[in-house]
C-alpha cells in the first residue's frame, strides 16, 4: 500500500463505558491505519471491543462513554469534535454499514425516499434529477434494478436490503466505510454475493473499508490486512495472508486453530473464557489462557513489537529481551482452568 493515501489513522484510542460494576475499558490503547483502497478486517470474539471500536471512530457511542486518543481522518482528529460537525461527516466522509439490514430501513419510507433524504442532507444543492440518477446508479451497482426504486423495504429480501444499505452508504461517496458484521444475519450464498460486492468496492471506487467481523474465513477471503482484538487490546496486526500463515500472537494462533472449517479434522478450543473487562487480568490479558505464558506475562505489560515483514504484535514471546526481568521467560505455572470458568 505504499504511496497510497492514509485515509484513517487511529492512534492510542481508548473507550470506557461506565457500568454498575465500575468502568469497562472496551477499547484500550488501540492504533492502526487504513489506506485508500484497502480492506482491514477487525476480528475478535464477542465482547472484545471490535464493534465499540468501529462505532467509536464515528462517535456513535452511547451517553456515559469516555473516549481518549486520536482518530485522524485525512489529518483531522475526530475525537472531541462537536457532535454537529461529526454528524455532517458521517455519510459523505465516513460511511457505515450495520448488521441486521432488516431493522435499519424505515418501513414507512420508499427506497427512493431513503436515498433522497441521505443525499439532500449532505448535498442540498442537488437537483431532483441528480438525486434520482445518483441513487439509481448506486442501486444498480448493487444489482438492484431501477424498476424497484419506489418500493418499500418490506418488498425486498434480506440480502437485497443489505445491498440497499450498502448503496445508501456509497451514494454519498465516502472515503472510508465501516462495515459492522455486514453479512452475519445473511445466508451463506447471499453472504458470498455481498462479499464479492464489497470486494468490487475497493476495485471500483478506491474506498477504504474497515470490516468488523467474528468470521475469520471472511477476513481470509476478502481483507488485505487484519487486526486481531482480545479483551479491548489490539494484540496483532498485519497483512492478512501473513497473519494467517504465520500468526505471531498465541491468541491469533489458537483462534485460527479453533475455527471449525471444512478442513477441520479435530476439535480445538481455547481453554477458559475472555476476561471480565471490569476486572481484567493484570499485564497481558491473555496470559491466564495462553499455552505459551511466561512469568513476565503476568507481571508486566507487553510492549508492541514489529516482527517478520510487516506484523505488529503485543506479546512478550517477541521481546524485547532487554525489558524482560531475570527469570521472566520461565513458564508460568497456571492454575487449572475448570470447565466452570469456561465460556
Amino acid at each position: 500500500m505504499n504511496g497510497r493515501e492514509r485515509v484513517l489513522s487511529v492512534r492510542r484510542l481508548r473507550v470506557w463505558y461506565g457500568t454498575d460494576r465500575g468502568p469497562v475499558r472496551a477499547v484500550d490503547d488501540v492504533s492502526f491505519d487504513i489506506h485508500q483502497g484497502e480492506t482491514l478486517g477487525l476480528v475478535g470474539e464477542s465482547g472484545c471491543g471490535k464493534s465499540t471500536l468501529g462505532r467509536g471512530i464515528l462517535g456513535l457511542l452511547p451517553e456515559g462513554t469516555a473516549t481518549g486518543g486520536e482518530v485522524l481522518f485525512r489529518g483531522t482528529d475526530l475525537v472531541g469534535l462537536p457532535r454537529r460537525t461529526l454528524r455532517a461527516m458521517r455519510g459523505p466522509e465516513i460511511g457505515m454499514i450495520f448488521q441486521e439490514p432488516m431493522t435499519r430501513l424505515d418501513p414507512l419510507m420508499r427506497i427512493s425516499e431513503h436515498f433522497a433524504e441521505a443525499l439532500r442532507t449532505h448535498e442540498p444543492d442537488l437537483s431532483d434529477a441528480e438525486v434520482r440518477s445518483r441513487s439509481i446508479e448506486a442501486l444498480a451497482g448493487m444489482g438492484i434494478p431501477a424498476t424497484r426504486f419506489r418500493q418499500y423495504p418490506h418488498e425486498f429480501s434480506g440480502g437485497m436490503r443489505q445491498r440497499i444499505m450498502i448503496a445508501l452508504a456509497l451514494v454519498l461517496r465516502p472515503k472510508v466505510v465501516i462495515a459492522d458484521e455486514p453479512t452475519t444475519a445473511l445466508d451463506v450464498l447471499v453472504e458470498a454475493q455481498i462479499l464479492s460486492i464489497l470486494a468490487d468496492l475497493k476495485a471500483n471506487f478506491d474506498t477504504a473499508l474497515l470490516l468488523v467481523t467474528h468470521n475469520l474465513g471472511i477476513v481470509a477471503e476478502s481483507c488485505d490486512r487484519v487486526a486481531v482484538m482480545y479483551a479491548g487490546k489490539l494484540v496483532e496486526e498485519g497483512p492478512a495472508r501473513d497473519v494467517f500463515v504465520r500468526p505471531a500472537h498465541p491468541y491469533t494462533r489458537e483462534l485460527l486453530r479453533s475455527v471449525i472449517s471444512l478442513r477441520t479434522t479435530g476439535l480445538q478450543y481455547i481453554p477458559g473464557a475472555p476476561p471480565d473487562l471490569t476486572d481484567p487480568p493484570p499485564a497481558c490479558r491473555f496470559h491466564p489462557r495462553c499455552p505459551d505464558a511466561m512469568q513476565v506475562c503476568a507481571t508486566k505489560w507487553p510492549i508492541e513489537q514489529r516482527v517478520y515483514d510487516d506484523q505488529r504484535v503485543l506479546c512478550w514471546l517477541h521481546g524485547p529481551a532487554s525489558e524482560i526481568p531475570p527469570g521472566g521467560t520461565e513458564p508460568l505455572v497456571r492454575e487449572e482452568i475448570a470447565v466452570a470458568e469456561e465460556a
Partner: protein
Amino acid sequence: MSSPDTTLERGAAASRDDTPLLEVRDLKTHFPLRGTFLQRVLGRETGSVKAVDGVSFELRRGEVLGLVGESGSGKTTLGRTILRLADPTSGSILVDGGDVAGLSEHDFRPYRRRIQMVFQDPHASLNPAMDLLTAIGHPLKIHGLATTQDAVREAVASALERVGLTPVELFLRKYPSDLSGGQKQRAVIARAIILGPDLLIADEPVSMLDMSVRAKILELMLELKDELDLTYLYITHDLATAKFLCDRVAIMYLGRIVEVGPTAEIFANPRHPYTVALLRAVPDPDPERHVPRDVPRGEVPDAVSPPLGCSFHPRCPRAFEVCGWESRDLKELLETRAAGLDTDARPSGIGDLSRLGEPSRSAIIPPERGHDPSEVVETLSRIRSATPEEPLWTGVRRMRALAEGVGVEFHEPIDPTLLPEGPVAVACHLYDARALETARRAAAESDEISEPR
C-alpha cells in the same frame, strides 16, 4: 460419577432390531395464510406457506443426521414438527415404527420424554427467573418422574456433572444471567438429557456461540452421545460443523431434501448444483482462497408459491428444458437482467408484465401501448441472442406472435424426486435418465419455425 441414575442410564435396550429410531415419510407442514377479511368471509383459498413440503428420511439408533439448509429451507420447522411443536399437515412420523403424527397432545406426551430439543439461542431458552436447579429439574416435575425435592436435586446434580458444569453445588443456585453463553448452552443440554431421551434434536446449538467455545460444545455433544447412547438430528446452516459432527447429511432447499447421503461422500463429491454452490460459498480461513465469484443469483424464493418444477431452477446454472421454467422466470429476466439495471424502462416495445407474476407454463407478453407485437418479437429475439448462456431459453417450447402480444410457452416441468445415485440420493434431473431423455425430446420438438428470428 455419582451413583447410577436410572433415568440417565437407560441405554438402547428398547429395540435392537432394524427398525429406525425415527422415520419420517412424506412429511408436510404447511402454515395457512390468514388472508384478508373479505377472503375469509367468502371462504376463499388464501394459500399457505409450504415450510416442509414432502420430506422423507430415516434416522438409525446412534446415528447423527445433519439437516443442512439456509434460512427458509424448512429445517427448523421440520425439527419442530417431529417434536409436534408444529402440526404436520400430512405424512407420517414413525418412532420405533409407530406413527406419532396423528397422536393427540395427551397421547404424544410420553414421546416428549424420548425426544428432546436443544434450541439455537441459549439466552432465550432459559427462564431468567429460574435458577438452574429449578430450570433443569422442571422436566422431571412435568413428567412426574421425581416426587421429592431431594430426588430432583440429585438428578439435576448428575445432569450438571455430565455437561461439565462443576462444582455442581456452585451451579445449582445460579441464574442464567450469571452464566456465559457456553455455560448456558451446557445448562440447556443438561435440561434436555435429564429425562433420559433417545433422540436429541439440536437446532443450531452452537451458532450463537463464539468460535473458541463452539468446539467445546460439539465435543460435549459427542461425549454425551457415547455415554448416553443418544441419537442426534443436527439442524444447522453451517456446513463445516455438520461435516465434522454428522454421519449423514441431508441438504434442504425450500421445504425439501435435495441431496442426502454419507457425510464424506456429500462433501467430497457433491452432486446437486445447490450443494455444490453451498460448499463453494463457505468462507474458509485459508489465505489462498478468494471470494467466490460465480455464486448463484438471487435468494431463496417465497415458500407460499414455490417455483414450478425444481425449486432451485431459477438460480441454477445447470438448469435445462424440464426443470420448471415459467412466467415468473421470464418476468425476472425481462425486468431486471435484460433491461439494464440503471433504467426503469422496460425493454423497448414491451408492455406491462404484472400478469407474469402468477406462476404459469405459458405467458403472454403484451406490447407497450402504441407499439406493435412485432416489436416485442424483435426485442425478445435481441435479448435472446444477447444472453445465449441464459438457461431459461432452453425451457422455451415455442414463442409466437398473437393478436394480444407474444405468447411464450414453456416445456412441461418435471418435479424432481430423490433418486439413488451411487451412495447418495439426489433430487436433480441431471441425474435422472428419464428426465434427461424427456428434455432431449423436448429440445427436439421446440418449435423453431415461429421462433422470432
